[in-house]
């Protein structure tokens, strides 16, 4: 029982898809491989599916040149024990209630009655999650979450009231583009555009936990929306440039902690130091700054100037506190 098994593999999946139809053709095989396979699969896989000297024997050539499957039925999608154990484990996760009502959860639990969960929440411990996570058991929260999720799917125009991060009441018409989950905050947010007269006014993020009222206006936002444009509107104008030294295993620690960022890295051959350019959401600049400061003198913020200046101010203030004799 291992997830690294060919039965889950891309080649098996493509073969299963092609075997759904009694008859297929070479063009469909190549197109399916191109669409569903790895980048180079089209160089290796078609000859395994199309009858010839290398094929697996899953299809035979018909009188008209068509490809006929050797099986009698379309393949069935049987869940493995591992997949069922994983599903069972998810039923103990409070976030499952965001998606399924109690009756459905009970039904799935019944279906998996003979299956042991792959794990229970007690097998894992998150060491550094923030304490103010969203309340997934709160009925109001669940309802708001479901409304927001439905709006993302339909691209509905929603009237939303919420409390901003600064404690202000905000309301307006929004179109929700995507949901975001942060394991660090254990919170859901929605990427959105604020609308004025049905036109995009600004981009933003709404914490689902801060929504006080959400209602569908009954209208759909039909203007094509690009997520790339959304992210570009929030991206820093120039990347943070960080010098990472080799002391205290700095390179490995830094690279791993900032692995989730889009970045460009250059290594100095003489010193072994790395210079890393990090692109970030400019609304998350303070979060980036304090995370960088936590590396102490192992790294140095080289730019942009305003980020370096903020770091400098905090460091100098700290030095003063220590020099004042109290620290």
């Amino acid at each position: 029982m291992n997830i690294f098994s060919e039965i889950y593999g891309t080649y098996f999946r493509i073969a299963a898809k092609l075997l759904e139809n009694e008859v297929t053709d070479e063009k469909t095989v190549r197109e399916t491989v191109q669409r569903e396979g790895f980048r180079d699969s089209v160089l290796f896989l078609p000859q395994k599916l199309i009858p010839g000297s290398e094929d697996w024997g899953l299809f035979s050539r018909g009188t008209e040149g068509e490809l006929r499957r050797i099986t009698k039925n379309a393949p069935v999608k049987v869940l493995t024990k591992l997949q069922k154990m994983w599903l069972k484990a998810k039923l103990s996760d409070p976030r499952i209630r965001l998606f399924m009502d109690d009756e459905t959860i009970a039904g799935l639990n019944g279906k998996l009655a003979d299956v042991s969960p792959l794990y229970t929440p007690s097998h894992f411990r998150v060491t550094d999650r923030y304490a103010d996570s969203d309340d997934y058991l709160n009925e109001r929260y669940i309802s708001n979450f479901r409304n927001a999720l439905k709006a993302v799917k339909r691209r509905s125009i929603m009237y939303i009231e919420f409390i901003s991060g600064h404690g202000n009441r905000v309301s307006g018409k929004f179109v929700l583009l995507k949901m975001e989950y942060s394991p660090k905050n254990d919170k859901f947010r929605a990427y959105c555009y604020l609308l004025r007269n049905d036109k995009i006014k600004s981009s933003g993020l709404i914490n689902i936990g801060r929504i006080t009222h959400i209602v569908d206006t009954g209208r759909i936002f039909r203007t094509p929306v690009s997520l790339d444009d959304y992210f570009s509107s929030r991206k820093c104008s120039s990347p943070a440039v960080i010098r990472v030294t080799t002391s205290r295993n700095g390179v490995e620690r830094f690279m791993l902690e900032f692995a989730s960022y889009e970045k460009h890295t250059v290594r100095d051959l003489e010193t072994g130091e790395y210079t890393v350019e990090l692109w970030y959401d400019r609304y998350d600049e303070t979060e980036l700054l304090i995370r960088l400061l936590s590396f102490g003198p192992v790294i140095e913020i080289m730019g942009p100037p305003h980020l370096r200046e903020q770091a400098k101010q905090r460091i100098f203030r700290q030095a003063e506190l220590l020099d004042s004799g109290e620290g």
Partner: protein
Amino acid sequence: MAGFSELIKNFDKTRDYVRDFFIYGCKVRSDFDRKSIRTYGDEKRRVESWIGDYMRYDDSVRGRSVSISVDSGHIPENPLYNAYYSRSFTDNDIRLHFLIMDVLQDGESRTLKDITDILNNEYAQFFDEQTVRNKLKEYVEEGIVLSEKQGKTLYYSLSADRADEYLSEFRGLDDALKFFSETNDLGIIGNSILKMCGLENDLFFIKHNYIIHTLEDILLPEILDGINEKRFISFRTFSAKKVRDSSQPGSENQVIPMKVLISVQTGRRYLAAFIPAVNRFSAFRLDYMKTVKKGDICEDYDEVKAKFDRNISRCFGVSFGMRHDTGAVTTMKITFYVDEENEPYVLERLEREKRCCTLEKTGDHLYTLTADVFDPNEIMHWAKTFIGRIVRIEGGADSVRERFRSDIARMKRMYGGDEDEHIQ
């Protein structure tokens, strides 16, 4: 490239390469000194094939360097899952897979002989009974095929649990799969269900997303089994340097597994375990571990677990103590300056991030965090996010306080611009 295959047999080898491309970036072929040029070329080509859009190339005097650059907060699917979908197999494996499923699809139970005869007579596919038996046995273990003994004969039938039927029967399961398939507790398995049904996650992005974790998921089922069955487990560990040299055997460890610890801020996951040989708890990084094997049942498991539960409450992160390095550890107190009226968010941060510590107001604009933890070193990485506000540090260990002072002095020189600070 003659003999190149997109598929792999050895996950560990690929795991090493992907990790290097992903974490370090800017490596050129000569940095991968452990392997032949051809192996490097093959691994690179495979990774390119899986993760094409995220590969980045830079030319330097040393050659072309390869790295993976992913803004992983803005991707619908972890591209590294592809490593799991690349297991190699034989022609017989794939043929038998679809044929056995087809023969058993009518729901009837059949004997090995029946199945082999049908394959030979109705499908003109000639397999000997041993080959079919082996595949059936494998599929019984996977839960795809069920076996039942009637008298002395084993009967085989296909499991009735179908992914597509589950999705239509249980409303909301599709969206749940889209979400959980990208979370870091074995999301790959959820992704495999989505893929079976031709679905993909089009709803969720994950912030602070350490997609590299999925490469360690290969170890988790065995570890979780070990915990469930209260067994010893053994595995090999590699130091940060040697993890990239797969010719090194690493060190053998035998432990009693307790929990998987996840740091959502540093991108690391650990196995917390008791090491009988040295009579202490410790945390092993999953990305430095290989080859986990279950051992004997541990008779004292519950007793050890009770002790672990007491101890873990005094871990700020994952460390169970560094008394050998830091000497005596006493309760640590860190006092922060907070202007509650104008900066309420700072106080909120302290409250939500303090973990097992306590926080109390100790003066005008002063808040003191008390930490009774095994390893005060661990607090300091976090405490440094409050640089500019730390008024006082008391207790803990002398070395920890000294290091903080010297770090701030060095940073002041570094950012002061009037002195060229070189870190050693």
